[in-house]
């Protein structure tokens, strides 16, 4: 029997790309449960429908590109994209909205660039931004949280998704929307006049954010990613909010706690910013990358046109990632200086 001839190393660690993706999926579970608890089944329907579409589109793209289906579908990357987009979309989104988003994410942002690993932009965020620009009405009508509005049941959620009925009755402005549009009230008054603000950052939002934080910490513990990018991003958001928070005037941008726990801050920090494919590569690079995203998130939220900004901030920094890489090469063993790809 001929002996095999392959290159070293001959042993391999337990981690695989499929397991990385599975861990990410698992880590979203607490957040999804909290979202479902506060906003009803809308998010769950979003996720399931998005996943089905994502697998279908992925299979379509793979067969068009004549790649083996099983091997590539087995890496779960399409499902991760779908779940992330499903969470990011407002609950009770119509089916076509999700379909357009997933098509943009899988076909345009991922496979047009060569599939997993070759996409310069985060596919889920590309899908999100395409929808946000194209369908601003649907994208900004977020469901009212439990205790404020009536929560639809599962059947109603499915109806909302797959029939043309509209659930305007149960949607309301998110705390970030309200803050954005506010220009006369003190922060304290805002809290008093708008029930959805909850304790710190909005009913439902604060708990969902904490759940995503928990999931993210578990991923950190699992060593799926390093702490650098998320910590840098959260730190930058908190720092900006602290610097510009004047104690609650009408022009104020909200407290650091409010910014950390509202909107997509936590979700973005642990599930979007940590997407390795489109981010900077070195640890130092990821610190810069995360911090700049945090900075952009705050700037767009407070001074820009959109109430939330994680998607835009991430996409803008995706552009900058190769540039960051150039200037953040680590110092190699035995070299006096840090490497600079430009020398």
């Amino acid at each position, binding site marked *: 029997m001929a002996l095999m001839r392959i*290159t070293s190393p001959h042993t391999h660690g337990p981690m695989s790309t499929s397991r990385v993706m599975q861990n990410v999926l698992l880590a979203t579970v607490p957040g999804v449960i909290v979202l479902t608890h506060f906003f009803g089944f809308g998010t769950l329907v979003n996720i399931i429908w998005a996943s089905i579409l994502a697998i279908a589109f992925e299979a379509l793209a793979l067969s068009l*590109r*004549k*790649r*083996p289906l099983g*091997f590539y579908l087995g890496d779960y990357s399409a499902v991760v994209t779908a779940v992330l987009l499903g969470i990011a979309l407002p609950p009770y989104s119509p089916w076509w909205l999700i379909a357009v988003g997933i098509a943009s994410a899988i076909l345009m942002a991922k496979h047009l660039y060569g599939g997993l690993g070759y996409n310069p932009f985060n596919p889920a965020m590309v899908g999100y931004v395409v929808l946000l620009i194209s369908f601003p009405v649907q994208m900004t009508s977020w469901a009212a949280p439990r205790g404020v509005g009536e929560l639809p049941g599962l059947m109603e959620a499915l109806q909302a998704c797959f029939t043309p009925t509209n659930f305007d009755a149960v949607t309301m402005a998110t705390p970030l929307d309200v803050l954005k549009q506010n220009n006369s009230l003190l922060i304290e008054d805002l809290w008093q006049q708008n029930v959805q603000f909850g304790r710190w950052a909005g009913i439902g939002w604060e708990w969902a954010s904490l759940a995503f934080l928990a999931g993210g910490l578990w991923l950190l513990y699992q060593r799926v990613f390093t702490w650098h990018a998320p910590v840098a991003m959260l730190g930058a958001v908190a720092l900006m909010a602290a610097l510009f928070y004047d104690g609650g005037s009408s022009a104020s941008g909200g407290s650091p706690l409010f910014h950390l726990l509202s909107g997509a801050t936590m979700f973005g920090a642990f599930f979007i910013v940590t997407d390795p494919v489109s981010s900077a590569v070195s640890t130092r690079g990821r610190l810069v990358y995360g911090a700049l995203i945090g900075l952009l998130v705050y700037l767009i939220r407070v001074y820009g046109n959109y109430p939330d900004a994680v998607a835009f901030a991430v996409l803008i920094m995706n552009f900058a990632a190769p540039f960051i890489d150039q200037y953040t090469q680590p110092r190699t063993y035995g070299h006096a200086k840090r490497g600079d790809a430009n020398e």
Partner: protein
Amino acid sequence: MYELIAQYPLFAALFAMVGLGLIFGALLGYAAVRFKTEGNPIVDQINEILPQTQCGQCGHPGCRPYAEAIADGEAINKCPPGGQAGVQALADLLDVDAIPLDEEHGEESVSQVAYIREDECIGCTKCIQACPVDAILGAAKHMHTVIASECTGCDLCVEPCPVDCIDMISEEESLQTWSWQLPDPVSREVDIIATDAQATEEAA
């Protein structure tokens, strides 16, 4: 002057534009002189990319003449020893499209070294005269031999030999020259990018 400008905004704009133009023009002109880069003439740069086998397969007597011809606009795909990689490098340098190697001038092959079967050599010196890099040693009526380390493998010495005693020997891979190859995705178990392989075959 100031009043004139204040009265006629058109003059103001004109004045500003012309003034700016002059200032920046002067700046640029100064920079062009002050920070002039002493680059290699293009012919030298092209010549550096060419493999210097001096084989004449391009139709020029040596690499430098071909470099000069390329600088004058000749096609960049006439150098088989440089291979497709050489064409690519030239295309990058000259900022033109990389075109496939022109097979009229020969095919890309492994590097070779001329070898004279010395007991058959009659000492005619014809190969010595043909060698573009003076890599053949010998005198009239005396045996000739190729200095292997100087030979570029151009095979120009083979044709003139009256007794056909020159062989072109391909350098065989040995323990010393062996190295790992880049992993070949096709050879791995799943035919992951079989279509890519087909595509390259079709292109070839």
